[in-house]
Protein backbone atom coordinates (compact mmCIF):
# COMPACT_ATOMS: atom_id res chain seq x y z
CA UNK A 1 0.00 0.00 0.00
CA UNK A 2 1.21 3.48 -0.82
CA UNK A 3 1.99 5.88 1.99
CA UNK A 4 -1.33 7.56 2.89
CA UNK A 5 0.40 10.59 4.36
CA UNK A 6 1.79 11.49 0.92
CA UNK A 7 -1.65 11.75 -0.66
CA UNK A 8 -3.19 15.10 -1.45
CA UNK A 9 -6.39 16.05 0.35
CA UNK A 10 -8.36 15.56 -2.87
CA UNK A 11 -6.94 12.05 -3.34
CA UNK A 12 -7.59 11.20 0.31
CA UNK A 13 -11.23 12.29 0.17
CA UNK A 14 -11.74 10.34 -3.06
CA UNK A 15 -10.21 7.18 -1.62
CA UNK A 16 -12.41 7.40 1.49
CA UNK A 17 -15.55 8.07 -0.54
CA UNK A 18 -14.74 5.12 -2.82
CA UNK A 19 -14.17 2.83 0.16
CA UNK A 20 -10.52 2.17 -0.74
CA UNK A 21 -9.49 3.23 2.74
CA UNK A 22 -11.37 4.16 5.91
CA UNK A 23 -11.22 7.57 7.54
CA UNK A 24 -9.95 5.87 10.69
CA UNK A 25 -7.04 4.33 8.75
CA UNK A 26 -6.23 7.76 7.31
CA UNK A 27 -6.37 9.44 10.73
CA UNK A 28 -4.26 6.66 12.28
CA UNK A 29 -1.61 6.95 9.55
CA UNK A 30 -1.25 10.67 10.26
CA UNK A 31 -1.24 10.20 14.04
CA UNK A 32 1.53 7.61 13.56
CA UNK A 33 3.48 10.02 11.38
CA UNK A 34 3.13 12.74 14.03
CA UNK A 35 4.31 10.29 16.69
CA UNK A 36 7.32 9.43 14.52
CA UNK A 37 8.53 12.89 13.48
CA UNK A 38 6.98 15.64 15.60
CA UNK A 39 9.52 15.35 18.37
CA UNK A 40 11.97 16.73 15.80
CA UNK A 41 9.67 19.16 13.98
CA UNK A 42 7.49 20.37 16.89
CA UNK A 43 4.66 21.48 14.61
CA UNK A 44 1.98 20.60 17.17
CA UNK A 45 1.27 22.07 20.59
CA UNK A 46 -1.53 19.61 21.21
CA UNK A 47 -2.44 16.39 19.40
CA UNK A 48 -6.09 15.42 19.87
CA UNK A 49 -5.76 11.70 19.21
CA UNK A 50 -9.13 10.72 20.72
CA UNK A 51 -11.02 13.57 19.07
CA UNK A 52 -9.48 12.87 15.66
CA UNK A 53 -10.29 9.15 15.77
CA UNK A 54 -13.85 9.88 16.94
CA UNK A 55 -14.34 12.32 14.04
CA UNK A 56 -12.92 9.73 11.65
CA UNK A 57 -15.20 6.98 12.98
CA UNK A 58 -18.20 9.26 12.47
CA UNK A 59 -17.21 9.68 8.80
CA UNK A 60 -16.90 5.93 8.31
CA UNK A 61 -20.32 5.40 9.94
CA UNK A 62 -21.84 8.06 7.72
CA UNK A 63 -20.49 6.31 4.65
CA UNK A 64 -21.70 2.92 5.91
CA UNK A 65 -25.20 4.40 6.23
CA UNK A 66 -24.97 5.49 2.60
CA UNK A 67 -25.01 9.22 3.42
CA UNK A 68 -23.42 11.61 0.96
CA UNK A 69 -19.94 12.76 2.04
CA UNK A 70 -18.60 16.28 1.56
CA UNK A 71 -15.56 17.00 -0.64
CA UNK A 72 -13.14 16.86 2.33
CA UNK A 73 -14.87 14.26 4.50
CA UNK A 74 -12.33 12.31 6.52
CA UNK A 75 -9.34 14.42 5.48
CA UNK A 76 -7.01 15.24 8.41
CA UNK A 77 -6.17 18.86 9.21
CA UNK A 78 -3.76 20.72 11.49
CA UNK A 79 -5.42 23.76 13.12
CA UNK A 80 -3.46 26.83 14.16
CA UNK A 81 -3.75 27.20 17.92
CA UNK A 82 -5.38 30.62 17.62
CA UNK A 83 -8.88 29.30 16.82
CA UNK A 84 -11.00 28.19 19.75
CA UNK A 85 -11.89 24.51 19.95
CA UNK A 86 -14.52 23.44 22.48
CA UNK A 87 -12.99 21.04 24.98
CA UNK A 88 -9.54 21.15 23.38
CA UNK A 89 -6.79 23.42 24.80
CA UNK A 90 -6.16 26.69 22.97
CA UNK A 91 -3.12 28.81 23.85
CA UNK A 92 -2.37 31.17 20.94
CA UNK A 93 1.26 30.23 21.68
CA UNK A 94 1.12 32.17 24.95
CA UNK A 95 1.80 31.27 28.59
CA UNK A 96 -1.08 33.52 29.57
CA UNK A 97 -3.51 30.98 28.07
CA UNK A 98 -1.68 27.83 29.19
CA UNK A 99 -4.22 25.18 30.13
CA UNK A 100 -7.23 27.18 28.91
CA UNK A 101 -9.98 25.00 27.47
CA UNK A 102 -12.47 27.10 25.46
CA UNK A 103 -16.17 26.59 26.15
CA UNK A 104 -17.07 27.18 22.50
CA UNK A 105 -15.96 26.50 18.91
CA UNK A 106 -14.83 29.23 16.53
CA UNK A 107 -17.07 29.46 13.46
CA UNK A 108 -14.15 28.13 11.39
CA UNK A 109 -13.78 25.13 13.74
CA UNK A 110 -17.49 24.46 13.48
CA UNK A 111 -17.40 24.62 9.68
CA UNK A 112 -14.53 22.14 9.58
CA UNK A 113 -16.44 19.75 11.84
CA UNK A 114 -19.65 20.18 9.83
CA UNK A 115 -17.65 19.31 6.69
CA UNK A 116 -16.38 16.12 8.43
CA UNK A 117 -12.77 17.30 8.30
CA UNK A 118 -10.71 15.43 10.92
CA UNK A 119 -8.90 17.88 13.22
CA UNK A 120 -5.64 16.23 14.34
CA UNK A 121 -4.59 18.91 16.79
CA UNK A 122 -3.43 22.47 17.34
CA UNK A 123 -0.27 23.86 15.77
CA UNK A 124 2.57 25.98 17.11
CA UNK A 125 2.72 29.70 16.34
CA UNK A 126 4.34 32.94 17.37
CA UNK A 127 2.63 34.19 20.53
CA UNK A 128 -0.71 35.79 19.55
CA UNK A 129 0.44 35.49 15.90
CA UNK A 130 3.08 38.20 16.40
CA UNK A 131 6.19 37.16 14.53
CA UNK A 132 7.66 35.74 11.34
CA UNK A 133 9.53 32.70 12.63
CA UNK A 134 7.44 30.89 15.30
CA UNK A 135 10.35 31.57 17.68
CA UNK A 136 8.06 33.83 19.71
CA UNK A 137 6.01 30.82 20.81
CA UNK A 138 6.10 30.39 24.59
CA UNK A 139 6.38 26.64 23.94
CA UNK A 140 9.60 26.57 21.92
CA UNK A 141 10.36 26.93 18.21
CA UNK A 142 9.28 24.73 15.29
CA UNK A 143 11.84 23.37 12.84
CA UNK A 144 11.57 23.78 9.08
CA UNK A 145 11.28 20.24 7.64
CA UNK A 146 13.73 21.28 4.86
CA UNK A 147 16.37 22.03 7.50
CA UNK A 148 15.42 21.65 11.15
CA UNK A 149 17.92 24.33 12.21
CA UNK A 150 15.97 26.93 10.25
CA UNK A 151 12.68 28.73 10.91
CA UNK A 152 9.47 27.48 9.27
CA UNK A 153 8.22 31.05 8.95
CA UNK A 154 5.63 32.61 11.15
CA UNK A 155 3.39 33.19 12.74
CA UNK A 156 1.83 30.01 11.36
CA UNK A 157 5.07 28.01 11.28
CA UNK A 158 3.49 24.98 12.93
CA UNK A 159 0.77 24.68 10.29
CA UNK A 160 3.23 25.03 7.38
CA UNK A 161 5.73 22.60 8.95
CA UNK A 162 2.96 20.02 9.55
CA UNK A 163 2.23 20.08 5.81
CA UNK A 164 5.86 19.88 4.72
CA UNK A 165 6.54 17.05 7.20
CA UNK A 166 3.53 15.07 5.88
CA UNK A 167 1.89 15.21 9.30
CA UNK A 168 -1.32 16.56 7.69
CA UNK A 169 -2.44 17.26 4.10
CA UNK A 170 -4.37 20.37 5.15
CA UNK A 171 -3.82 23.13 7.69
CA UNK A 172 -5.34 26.40 8.79
CA UNK A 173 -3.44 29.62 9.30
CA UNK A 174 -4.19 33.27 9.98
CA UNK A 175 -2.61 36.10 8.04
CA UNK A 176 -2.31 39.55 9.63
CA UNK A 177 0.85 40.66 7.81
CA UNK A 178 1.93 37.49 6.00
CA UNK A 179 1.53 34.72 8.60
CA UNK A 180 0.03 32.26 6.09
CA UNK A 181 1.98 33.23 2.96
CA UNK A 182 5.49 33.61 4.43
CA UNK A 183 5.46 30.18 6.16
CA UNK A 184 4.08 28.73 2.92
CA UNK A 185 6.94 30.27 0.94
CA UNK A 186 9.76 29.08 3.20
CA UNK A 187 8.41 25.52 3.54
CA UNK A 188 7.57 24.93 -0.13
CA UNK A 189 3.80 24.76 0.50
CA UNK A 190 0.75 26.72 -0.65
CA UNK A 191 -0.78 29.41 1.56
CA UNK A 192 -3.72 31.69 0.86
CA UNK A 193 -4.86 34.86 2.57
CA UNK A 194 -8.46 35.24 1.40
CA UNK A 195 -10.08 38.63 0.95
CA UNK A 196 -10.54 40.37 4.31
CA UNK A 197 -13.93 39.36 5.72
CA UNK A 198 -14.21 36.18 3.63
CA UNK A 199 -13.52 33.80 6.54
CA UNK A 200 -15.21 34.44 9.89
CA UNK A 201 -13.11 35.81 12.75
CA UNK A 202 -15.58 34.59 15.40
CA UNK A 203 -13.50 32.53 17.81
CA UNK A 204 -10.21 33.68 16.28
CA UNK A 205 -8.18 35.15 19.13
CA UNK A 206 -7.77 38.75 17.99
CA UNK A 207 -4.40 40.36 17.28
CA UNK A 208 -5.18 43.20 14.86
CA UNK A 209 -8.86 43.06 13.98
CA UNK A 210 -8.79 45.15 10.80
CA UNK A 211 -6.01 42.93 9.37
CA UNK A 212 -6.53 39.39 10.76
CA UNK A 213 -7.78 36.85 8.25
CA UNK A 214 -7.99 33.06 8.50
CA UNK A 215 -7.16 31.01 5.44
CA UNK A 216 -6.21 27.65 3.95
CA UNK A 217 -2.75 26.02 3.84
CA UNK A 218 -2.06 22.90 1.76
CA UNK A 219 0.51 21.11 -0.38
CA UNK A 220 -1.38 21.75 -3.62
CA UNK A 221 -3.39 24.64 -5.04
CA UNK A 222 -6.48 22.46 -5.52
CA UNK A 223 -6.38 21.26 -1.90
CA UNK A 224 -6.18 24.88 -0.71
CA UNK A 225 -9.21 25.71 -2.88
CA UNK A 226 -11.25 22.79 -1.49
CA UNK A 227 -10.47 23.98 2.04
CA UNK A 228 -11.15 27.61 1.11
CA UNK A 229 -14.67 26.67 0.01
CA UNK A 230 -15.33 24.89 3.31
CA UNK A 231 -14.22 27.74 5.59
CA UNK A 232 -15.34 30.84 3.65
CA UNK A 233 -18.77 32.43 3.65
CA UNK A 234 -20.89 34.89 5.58
CA UNK A 235 -21.17 34.53 9.37
CA UNK A 236 -23.70 36.61 11.32
CA UNK A 237 -21.48 36.19 14.42
CA UNK A 238 -18.72 38.31 12.83
CA UNK A 239 -19.86 41.84 12.05
CA UNK A 240 -16.99 42.28 9.57
CA UNK A 241 -17.90 39.14 7.63
CA UNK A 242 -18.58 39.79 3.94
CA UNK A 243 -22.14 38.94 2.94
CA UNK A 244 -21.44 37.86 -0.65
CA UNK A 245 -21.06 34.54 -2.49
CA UNK A 246 -17.67 32.81 -2.17
CA UNK A 247 -15.76 33.22 -5.47
CA UNK A 248 -15.54 29.98 -7.54
CA UNK A 249 -12.12 28.99 -6.20
CA UNK A 250 -12.33 25.22 -6.78
CA UNK A 251 -13.45 25.67 -10.37
CA UNK A 252 -10.53 28.10 -10.88
CA UNK A 253 -8.04 25.66 -9.31
CA UNK A 254 -9.21 22.93 -11.70
CA UNK A 255 -8.77 25.29 -14.64
CA UNK A 256 -5.27 26.73 -14.30
CA UNK A 257 -5.06 28.75 -17.47
CA UNK A 258 -3.44 32.17 -17.74
CA UNK A 259 -3.79 32.68 -21.48
CA UNK A 260 -4.82 36.24 -22.15
CA UNK A 261 -4.47 37.28 -18.52
CA UNK A 262 -2.68 40.51 -17.71
CA UNK A 263 -0.18 40.13 -14.90
CA UNK A 264 1.66 42.99 -13.21
CA UNK A 265 5.13 42.79 -11.65
CA UNK A 266 5.33 45.20 -8.72
CA UNK A 267 8.38 47.33 -9.44
CA UNK A 268 8.94 48.23 -5.78
CA UNK A 269 9.49 44.60 -4.69
CA UNK A 270 13.08 43.63 -5.47
CA UNK A 271 16.59 45.02 -5.38
CA UNK A 272 18.51 45.66 -2.20
CA UNK A 273 17.76 43.27 0.65
CA UNK A 274 16.46 40.54 -1.67
CA UNK A 275 18.40 37.29 -1.88
CA UNK A 276 19.82 36.62 -5.37
CA UNK A 277 18.36 33.11 -5.58
CA UNK A 278 14.92 34.39 -4.64
CA UNK A 279 15.03 36.98 -7.44
CA UNK A 280 16.33 34.35 -9.87
CA UNK A 281 13.38 32.03 -9.21
CA UNK A 282 11.00 34.98 -9.39
CA UNK A 283 12.36 36.07 -12.78
CA UNK A 284 11.96 32.49 -14.02
CA UNK A 285 8.35 32.53 -12.85
CA UNK A 286 7.73 35.70 -14.86
CA UNK A 287 9.19 34.00 -17.93
CA UNK A 288 7.09 30.91 -17.30
CA UNK A 289 3.88 32.97 -17.11
CA UNK A 290 4.78 34.60 -20.44
CA UNK A 291 5.36 31.16 -21.98
CA UNK A 292 1.96 30.08 -20.66
CA UNK A 293 0.33 32.91 -22.56
CA UNK A 294 -0.02 35.69 -20.01
CA UNK A 295 0.86 39.28 -20.79
CA UNK A 296 3.29 40.44 -18.11
CA UNK A 297 3.87 44.16 -17.52
CA UNK A 298 5.63 46.19 -14.87
CA UNK A 299 3.47 48.33 -12.58
CA UNK A 300 4.49 50.86 -9.98
CA UNK A 301 2.97 51.08 -6.51
CA UNK A 302 5.09 53.85 -4.96
CA UNK A 303 3.36 53.87 -1.55
CA UNK A 304 4.26 50.21 -0.94
CA UNK A 305 7.65 51.26 0.41
CA UNK A 306 5.72 52.80 3.32
CA UNK A 307 3.63 49.68 3.99
CA UNK A 308 5.99 48.14 6.54
CA UNK A 309 6.20 51.28 8.72
CA UNK A 310 2.43 51.79 8.49
CA UNK A 311 1.81 48.17 9.46
CA UNK A 312 4.10 48.39 12.50
CA UNK A 313 2.01 51.28 13.78
CA UNK A 314 -1.47 49.97 12.93
CA UNK A 315 -1.02 46.35 14.06
CA UNK A 316 0.56 47.23 17.44
CA UNK A 317 -2.07 49.92 18.03
CA UNK A 318 -4.90 47.45 17.51
CA UNK A 319 -3.08 44.77 19.52
CA UNK A 320 -2.57 47.09 22.49
CA UNK A 321 -6.34 47.41 22.65
CA UNK A 322 -7.23 43.78 21.82
CA UNK A 323 -4.85 42.26 24.36
CA UNK A 324 -6.33 44.35 27.17
CA UNK A 325 -8.77 41.46 27.62
CA UNK A 326 -6.00 39.43 29.24
CA UNK A 327 -6.61 40.89 32.67
CA UNK A 328 -6.22 37.77 34.89
CA UNK A 329 -9.87 37.98 35.90
CA UNK A 330 -12.06 35.94 33.53
CA UNK A 331 -9.79 33.30 32.03
CA UNK A 332 -6.14 32.39 31.69
CA UNK A 333 -3.25 32.93 34.03
CA UNK A 334 -3.44 34.80 37.34
CA UNK A 335 -0.28 35.34 39.38
CA UNK A 336 0.56 37.34 42.47
CA UNK A 337 -2.92 37.15 44.01
CA UNK A 338 -1.75 36.73 47.60
CA UNK A 339 -4.62 38.59 49.23
CA UNK A 340 -2.62 41.79 49.71
CA UNK A 341 -2.52 43.06 46.12
CA UNK A 342 -5.18 45.00 44.25
CA UNK A 343 -6.80 43.74 41.06
CA UNK A 344 -4.74 46.22 39.06
CA UNK A 345 -1.48 45.00 40.58
CA UNK A 346 -2.43 41.39 39.94
CA UNK A 347 -3.26 42.24 36.31
CA UNK A 348 0.13 43.90 35.77
CA UNK A 349 2.06 41.05 37.44
CA UNK A 350 0.14 38.45 35.44
CA UNK A 351 0.72 40.20 32.12
CA UNK A 352 4.41 40.59 32.93
CA UNK A 353 4.67 36.86 33.66
CA UNK A 354 2.33 35.66 30.91
CA UNK A 355 3.42 37.68 27.84
CA UNK A 356 6.70 37.21 25.97
CA UNK A 357 9.03 40.04 24.85
CA UNK A 358 7.54 40.59 21.36
CA UNK A 359 4.01 40.87 22.71
CA UNK A 360 5.17 43.36 25.36
CA UNK A 361 7.06 45.37 22.74
CA UNK A 362 4.03 45.60 20.50
CA UNK A 363 1.61 46.48 23.29
CA UNK A 364 3.89 49.33 24.39
CA UNK A 365 4.54 50.47 20.83
CA UNK A 366 0.80 50.59 20.18
CA UNK A 367 0.16 52.40 23.42
CA UNK A 368 2.82 54.93 22.40
CA UNK A 369 1.43 55.39 18.86
CA UNK A 370 -2.06 56.00 20.23
CA UNK A 371 -1.09 58.34 23.06
CA UNK A 372 -2.06 61.99 22.91
CA UNK A 373 0.62 64.14 21.29
CA UNK A 374 1.83 61.25 19.13
CA UNK A 375 -1.47 59.99 17.72
CA UNK A 376 -1.57 62.22 14.61
CA UNK A 377 2.10 61.70 13.70
CA UNK A 378 2.03 57.94 14.10
CA UNK A 379 -1.34 56.17 14.06
CA UNK A 380 -3.04 58.95 12.08
CA UNK A 381 -0.30 59.05 9.43
CA UNK A 382 -0.28 55.26 9.18
CA UNK A 383 -4.01 55.30 8.44
CA UNK A 384 -3.39 57.75 5.63
CA UNK A 385 -0.67 55.53 4.20
CA UNK A 386 -3.24 52.76 4.27
CA UNK A 387 -5.43 54.87 1.99
CA UNK A 388 -2.51 55.53 -0.38
CA UNK A 389 -1.65 51.83 -0.57
CA UNK A 390 -5.28 50.97 -1.33
CA UNK A 391 -5.24 53.60 -4.11
CA UNK A 392 -2.02 52.13 -5.56
CA UNK A 393 -3.72 48.73 -5.72
CA UNK A 394 -6.84 50.20 -7.35
CA UNK A 395 -4.73 51.90 -10.00
CA UNK A 396 -2.71 48.75 -10.63
CA UNK A 397 -5.82 46.59 -10.97
CA UNK A 398 -7.12 48.96 -13.64
CA UNK A 399 -4.21 47.75 -15.77
CA UNK A 400 -3.80 44.11 -14.73
CA UNK A 401 -5.82 41.13 -13.46
CA UNK A 402 -3.32 40.07 -10.79
CA UNK A 403 -0.02 41.29 -9.36
CA UNK A 404 3.00 39.10 -8.63
CA UNK A 405 6.14 39.39 -6.51
CA UNK A 406 8.42 37.18 -4.46
CA UNK A 407 6.52 36.21 -1.28
CA UNK A 408 9.54 36.87 0.94
CA UNK A 409 12.86 38.69 0.40
CA UNK A 410 14.90 35.67 1.59
CA UNK A 411 14.58 31.93 2.15
CA UNK A 412 14.25 30.44 5.65
CA UNK A 413 16.83 31.95 8.00
CA UNK A 414 18.54 30.05 10.87
CA UNK A 415 16.67 29.78 14.19
CA UNK A 416 18.07 32.45 16.51
CA UNK A 417 19.48 34.73 13.80
CA UNK A 418 16.88 37.50 14.14
CA UNK A 419 15.31 36.48 17.47
CA UNK A 420 16.29 39.63 19.39
CA UNK A 421 16.41 42.02 16.42
CA UNK A 422 12.79 43.11 15.84
CA UNK A 423 13.49 45.29 12.79
CA UNK A 424 15.34 42.49 10.97
CA UNK A 425 12.48 40.10 11.77
CA UNK A 426 9.86 42.57 10.50
CA UNK A 427 11.54 42.70 7.05
CA UNK A 428 10.37 39.13 6.36
CA UNK A 429 6.89 40.56 5.73
CA UNK A 430 7.94 43.31 3.33
CA UNK A 431 6.02 41.96 0.33
CA UNK A 432 3.03 40.46 2.11
CA UNK A 433 1.89 43.41 4.26
CA UNK A 434 0.32 45.65 1.55
CA UNK A 435 -2.46 43.10 0.91
CA UNK A 436 -3.42 43.06 4.59
CA UNK A 437 -3.57 46.85 4.72
CA UNK A 438 -5.79 46.96 1.62
CA UNK A 439 -7.79 43.83 2.52
CA UNK A 440 -7.40 42.09 -0.84
CA UNK A 441 -6.57 38.43 -1.58
CA UNK A 442 -3.11 36.87 -1.97
CA UNK A 443 -1.45 33.48 -2.32
CA UNK A 444 2.04 32.01 -2.08
CA UNK A 445 2.85 29.10 -4.36
CA UNK A 446 6.23 27.29 -4.58
CA UNK A 447 8.43 28.39 -7.50
CA UNK A 448 11.66 26.48 -6.89
CA UNK A 449 14.69 26.27 -4.63
CA UNK A 450 17.18 29.09 -4.26
CA UNK A 451 20.42 27.77 -5.83
CA UNK A 452 22.68 29.11 -3.05
CA UNK A 453 20.97 27.26 -0.17
CA UNK A 454 18.56 24.74 -1.77
CA UNK A 455 15.65 26.17 0.22
CA UNK A 456 12.13 26.86 -1.11
CA UNK A 457 11.12 30.16 -2.70
CA UNK A 458 7.52 31.37 -2.93
CA UNK A 459 5.79 33.29 -5.70
CA UNK A 460 3.18 35.71 -4.40
CA UNK A 461 0.03 36.32 -6.44
CA UNK A 462 -2.28 39.20 -5.44
CA UNK A 463 -5.87 39.68 -6.66
CA UNK A 464 -8.49 42.37 -6.00
CA UNK A 465 -10.87 41.89 -3.07
CA UNK A 466 -13.48 39.15 -3.76
CA UNK A 467 -11.57 37.99 -6.85
CA UNK A 468 -9.86 35.18 -4.90
CA UNK A 469 -10.59 32.78 -7.78
CA UNK A 470 -7.91 34.55 -9.87
CA UNK A 471 -5.26 33.46 -7.33
CA UNK A 472 -6.22 29.85 -7.86
CA UNK A 473 -6.35 30.16 -11.64
CA UNK A 474 -2.81 31.57 -11.78
CA UNK A 475 -1.52 29.42 -8.91
CA UNK A 476 -2.75 26.20 -10.52
CA UNK A 477 -1.16 27.14 -13.86
CA UNK A 478 2.20 27.89 -12.22
CA UNK A 479 2.05 24.72 -10.12
CA UNK A 480 1.22 22.50 -13.11
CA UNK A 481 3.94 24.00 -15.31
CA UNK A 482 6.64 23.79 -12.62
CA UNK A 483 5.66 20.25 -11.62
CA UNK A 484 6.00 19.19 -15.24
CA UNK A 485 9.35 20.95 -15.55
CA UNK A 486 10.73 19.44 -12.32
CA UNK A 487 9.16 16.04 -12.96
CA UNK A 488 7.62 15.98 -9.44
CA UNK A 489 6.21 18.33 -6.79
CA UNK A 490 8.84 20.53 -5.12
CA UNK A 491 8.30 18.97 -1.68
CA UNK A 492 9.65 15.65 -2.93
CA UNK A 493 13.09 17.26 -2.88
CA UNK A 494 12.90 17.83 0.86
CA UNK A 495 15.25 15.57 2.84
CA UNK A 496 13.72 12.63 4.74
CA UNK A 497 13.09 13.38 8.41
Amino acid at each position, binding site marked *: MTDITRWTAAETAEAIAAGKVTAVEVAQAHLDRIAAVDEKVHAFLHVDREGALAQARAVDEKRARGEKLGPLAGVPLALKDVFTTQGVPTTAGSKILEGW*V*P*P*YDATLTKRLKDADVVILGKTNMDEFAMGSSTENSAYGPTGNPWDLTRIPGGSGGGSAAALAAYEAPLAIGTDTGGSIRQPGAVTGTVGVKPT*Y*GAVSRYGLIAFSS*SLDQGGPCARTVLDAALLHEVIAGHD*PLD*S*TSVDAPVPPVVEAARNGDVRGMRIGVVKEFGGEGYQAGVMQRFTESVELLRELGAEVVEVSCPSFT*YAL*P*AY*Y*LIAPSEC*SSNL*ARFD*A*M*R*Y*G*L*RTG*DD*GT*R*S*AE*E*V*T*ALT*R*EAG*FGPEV*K*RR*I*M*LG*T*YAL*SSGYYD*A*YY*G*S*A*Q*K*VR*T*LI*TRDFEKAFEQVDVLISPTTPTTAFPIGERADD*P*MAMYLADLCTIPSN*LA*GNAAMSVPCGLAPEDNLPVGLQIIAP*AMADDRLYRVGAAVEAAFTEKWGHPLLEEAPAL
Partner: protein
Amino acid sequence: MPGITREEVAHLARLSRLELKSEELDHFAEQLNDIVDAVARVSEIAADDVPPTSHPLPLTNVMRADVVRPSLTPEQALSGAPAAEEQRFRVPQILGED
Protein backbone atom coordinates in the same frame (compact mmCIF):
# COMPACT_ATOMS: atom_id res chain seq x y z
CA MET B 1 11.79 63.32 17.22
CA PRO B 2 12.85 62.85 20.87
CA GLY B 3 14.01 59.35 21.81
CA ILE B 4 12.05 57.06 24.11
CA THR B 5 13.67 57.21 27.53
CA ARG B 6 13.75 54.58 30.24
CA GLU B 7 11.23 56.70 32.16
CA GLU B 8 8.94 56.82 29.16
CA VAL B 9 9.05 53.04 28.83
CA ALA B 10 8.12 52.77 32.49
CA HIS B 11 5.17 55.09 31.84
CA LEU B 12 4.08 53.06 28.79
CA ALA B 13 4.38 49.86 30.83
CA ARG B 14 2.12 51.33 33.53
CA LEU B 15 -0.46 52.33 30.92
CA SER B 16 -0.17 48.85 29.40
CA ARG B 17 -0.52 47.11 32.80
CA LEU B 18 2.87 45.45 32.52
CA GLU B 19 4.97 45.19 35.69
CA LEU B 20 8.30 45.31 33.82
CA LYS B 21 11.54 44.34 35.50
CA SER B 22 14.25 46.96 35.78
CA GLU B 23 16.53 45.33 33.19
CA GLU B 24 13.65 45.13 30.71
CA LEU B 25 13.23 48.92 30.77
CA ASP B 26 16.63 49.63 29.20
CA HIS B 27 16.35 46.82 26.66
CA PHE B 28 12.88 47.87 25.52
CA ALA B 29 13.86 51.56 25.43
CA GLU B 30 16.61 50.75 22.93
CA GLN B 31 14.41 48.50 20.79
CA LEU B 32 11.38 50.79 20.82
CA ASN B 33 13.63 53.66 19.75
CA ASP B 34 14.88 51.66 16.77
CA ILE B 35 11.34 50.74 15.78
CA VAL B 36 9.91 54.23 16.21
CA ASP B 37 12.80 55.68 14.18
CA ALA B 38 11.99 53.28 11.35
CA VAL B 39 8.23 53.73 11.35
CA ALA B 40 8.17 57.52 11.74
CA ARG B 41 8.65 57.70 7.94
CA VAL B 42 4.89 57.37 7.50
CA SER B 43 4.49 61.11 8.07
CA GLU B 44 6.54 61.80 4.89
CA ILE B 45 3.63 60.96 2.60
CA ALA B 46 0.66 61.46 4.93
CA ALA B 47 -0.53 64.70 3.37
CA ASP B 48 -3.41 66.73 4.82
CA ASP B 49 -5.73 65.92 1.91
CA VAL B 50 -5.40 62.13 2.29
CA PRO B 51 -8.31 60.66 4.25
CA PRO B 52 -7.47 57.99 6.84
CA THR B 53 -8.49 54.34 6.40
CA SER B 54 -9.32 52.51 9.62
CA HIS B 55 -10.72 49.38 8.05
CA PRO B 56 -10.65 47.65 4.63
CA LEU B 57 -14.45 47.28 4.44
CA PRO B 58 -16.85 50.23 4.16
CA LEU B 59 -19.03 48.89 6.98
CA THR B 60 -21.49 50.73 9.15
CA ASN B 61 -22.97 49.17 12.26
CA VAL B 62 -24.15 45.62 11.65
CA MET B 63 -27.12 44.75 13.83
CA ARG B 64 -28.89 41.50 14.53
CA ALA B 65 -32.51 41.06 15.55
CA ASP B 66 -33.01 41.45 19.31
CA VAL B 67 -34.15 37.91 20.04
CA VAL B 68 -33.26 35.45 22.78
CA ARG B 69 -30.74 32.83 21.63
CA PRO B 70 -28.97 29.92 23.31
CA SER B 71 -25.79 31.01 25.07
CA LEU B 72 -23.14 29.67 27.43
CA THR B 73 -24.30 28.37 30.80
CA PRO B 74 -22.84 30.11 33.90
CA GLU B 75 -20.68 27.01 34.46
CA GLN B 76 -19.29 27.22 30.91
CA ALA B 77 -18.72 30.96 31.14
CA LEU B 78 -16.83 30.53 34.41
CA SER B 79 -14.96 27.39 33.33
CA GLY B 80 -11.74 29.25 32.57
CA ALA B 81 -11.88 31.68 35.48
CA PRO B 82 -8.86 31.75 37.81
CA ALA B 83 -11.35 31.98 40.70
CA ALA B 84 -15.16 31.88 40.85
CA GLU B 85 -17.77 32.04 43.57
CA GLU B 86 -21.58 31.97 43.51
CA GLN B 87 -21.71 32.05 39.71
CA ARG B 88 -19.46 35.11 39.59
CA PHE B 89 -15.83 35.87 38.70
CA ARG B 90 -13.92 36.25 41.97
CA VAL B 91 -11.38 39.07 41.67
CA PRO B 92 -8.82 40.66 43.98
CA GLN B 93 -9.70 43.83 45.83
CA ILE B 94 -10.74 46.65 43.49
CA LEU B 95 -11.60 49.46 45.94
CA GLY B 96 -9.54 50.60 48.94
CA GLU B 97 -10.22 49.10 52.36
CA ASP B 98 -11.47 52.31 53.95
